[in-house]
């Protein structure tokens, strides 16, 4: 049975740009999918197609078991959307905004009002509830927009970069809200540029680039595929770098060709890929001690999602150019034009 969010072969072009180039997604009910990808990868476009705002050129999608293209209004009853840019009426108060959204979800006026109060409370907006949203800070608007997505407690939610612009405390609180939602059975598709967020919240991660899903799996699977754990040592003096590297080399991951220790002279850091975890780390410390090598810092490091991201997309999450002339998509477009 397909998941609560299911997409097959979604294609959407804007002129020359293939914003979606055959996207498949499958999010089981009650789980969170983190959609990662550099700027311009197609994340927002995917969200817009799945939330009935945009018709794809081809492909199929079902949300909450309902065909997105055939029964968009049925889908709208079952989803909550918080888009990449907060969509609130600036001249309405926070309360009026939420009440209006509730009524347009076909709730009665009274029920909509009660729900608005609940959500304002929940998102720390009670004090500002009766001020026009124009007077809100960026993070407050963001939270009002998120509250609007939760008005009817929809079974399927879409959040496009929900915590961008939130301070650490409000980000943490939103994460709590999301975890609570999911434990209540909500299915969530979340796009984010904060890889820590995906790590924290998402059961599964899909990395998208140039309109294609280029990798998917759990956070641990993705990290394992990028590379295993490694031991990292910072020695006290530059003279100790060479002997430390020699020792670490002996511990490096077994394989046909033992991996070399990598050395960063500037920070006096020696790194080597290993297998064996904490037990091995203790051995390394003893060995270094025996040889009189004094260390500032030592640790077992696992690849972060940032490492995964960089390895997969070949550029950092934050500063990738949206339309890279040498991107595969652009090349495909050029070839097609010939």
């Amino acid at each position, binding site marked *: 049975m397909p998941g609560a969010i299911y997409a097959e072969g979604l294609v959407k072009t804007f002129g020359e740009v293939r914003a979606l180039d055959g996207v498949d997604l499958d999010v089981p009910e009650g789980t969170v999918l983190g959609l990662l990808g550099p700027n311009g990868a197609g994340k927002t476009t995917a969200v*817009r197609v799945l*939330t*009935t*705002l*945009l*018709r794809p050129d081809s492909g199929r999608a079902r949300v*909450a078991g309902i065909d997105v293209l055939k029964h968009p*209004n*049925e889908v*709208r*009853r*079952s*989803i909550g*959307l918080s*888009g990449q*840019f*907060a*969509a*609130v*009426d*600036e*001249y*309405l108060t926070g309360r*009026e905004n939420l009440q*209006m*959204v509730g*009524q*347009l*979800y*076909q*709730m009665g006026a009274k029920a909509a009002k009660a729900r608005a109060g*609940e*959500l304002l*409370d*929940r998102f*720390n907006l009670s004090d500002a509830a009766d001020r*026009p949203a124009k007077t809100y800070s960026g993070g407050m608007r963001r939270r009002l927009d998120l509250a*609007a997505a*939760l008005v*009817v*407690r*929809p*079974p399927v939610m879409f959040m496009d970069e929900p915590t961008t612009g939130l301070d650490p405390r409000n980000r943490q*609180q939103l994460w709590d*809200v999301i975890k*609570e*939602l999911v434990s*209540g*059975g*909500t299915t969530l598709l979340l796009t984010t540029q904060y890889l820590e967020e995906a790590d924290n919240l998402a059961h599964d991660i899909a990395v998208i680039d140039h309109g294609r899903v280029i990798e998917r799996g759990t956070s641990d699977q993705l990290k394992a595929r990028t590379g295993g754990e490694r031991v990292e040592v910072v020695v006290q003096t530059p003279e100790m770098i060479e002997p430390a590297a020699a020792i670490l080399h002996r511990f490096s991951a077994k394989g046909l060709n033992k991996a070399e220790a990598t050395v960063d002279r500037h920070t006096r850091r020696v790194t080597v890929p290993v297998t064996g975890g904490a037990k091995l780390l203790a051995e390394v410390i003893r060995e270094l001690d025996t040889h009189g090598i004094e260390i500032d810092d030592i640790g077992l490091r696992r690849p972060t999602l940032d490492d995964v991201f960089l390895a997969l997309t070949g550029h950092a999450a934050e500063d990738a150019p949206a339309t890279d002339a040498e991107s595969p998509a652009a090349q495909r477009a050029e070839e097609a034009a010939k």
Partner: protein
Amino acid sequence: MTASTESFTHSRAPRPSGGPAQAVRDSLVVAKRNLIRMVRIPEVVIFGLIQPIMFVVLFSYVFGGAIPVPGHPGNDPSVYREYLMAGIFAQTVTFATAGAGAGIADDMHKGLIDRFRSLPMSRGAVLTGRTLADLVQTALTMLVLIVVAVIVGWRIHDGFPRALAGIGLLLLLGYAFSWIGALIGLSVRTPEAATSGGLIWLFPLTFISNAFVPTSNMPAFLRHVADWNPFSATVQAARQLFGNPQGAASNAWPMQHPALASLLWSLLIIAVFRTLAVRKYRSATA
């Protein structure tokens, strides 16, 4: 932060009843929202009032004695003043076009249209709500303008019921034009473009008509255009219903049956532009 797991157990939105009842309810919710905005941004309403008042005063006193109304010999300025007023009323109601257009373009720009389009609401409600709110604003503007008109000497001569019918036809024309504005608002990229796009074509439309000067002195071609201009039909109908001087009516059918022509024109404009605007709304992207 009050933690209550209860508040997040999920459920679908209530099933939309669909049909006209839901359409009316959704439209009223959106209309209320737009009216709240008008109250909170009163300068829009105030500027909307200043222009027609200026027109009343300028036309009455500057052109007053210079434009003879056929059938009323002598240059009595009070005759032209009565003749003019229906024209100004009609021009004023059509300015709703710019308001509706700018409002909808602004909603697109701010991402609110996306928010609405992701909700299980009736399809035309966002636009209907907007045009209804504009109708309320137009009616208020008309009220103020009528007071000003009475001050400069305008009167009705055939009783209240007929005068109300005349005002009804004027408001209906304004409502019809706000649907043209809605389509413009959905088709342009910025609220500024919607405002000018909603206004530029109103000038030829209102001037090639019987609104400010009698058509009898126009070249034959322009006179035909003026006779069949929806705007002229409403102006002529209002003059008849107010019992104001009408100039020499031409033989063209709309000028012979102005009230019916005005009604038909307005309904036709609503039918055509509402259909186009709602279709555009469904595929609109910011």
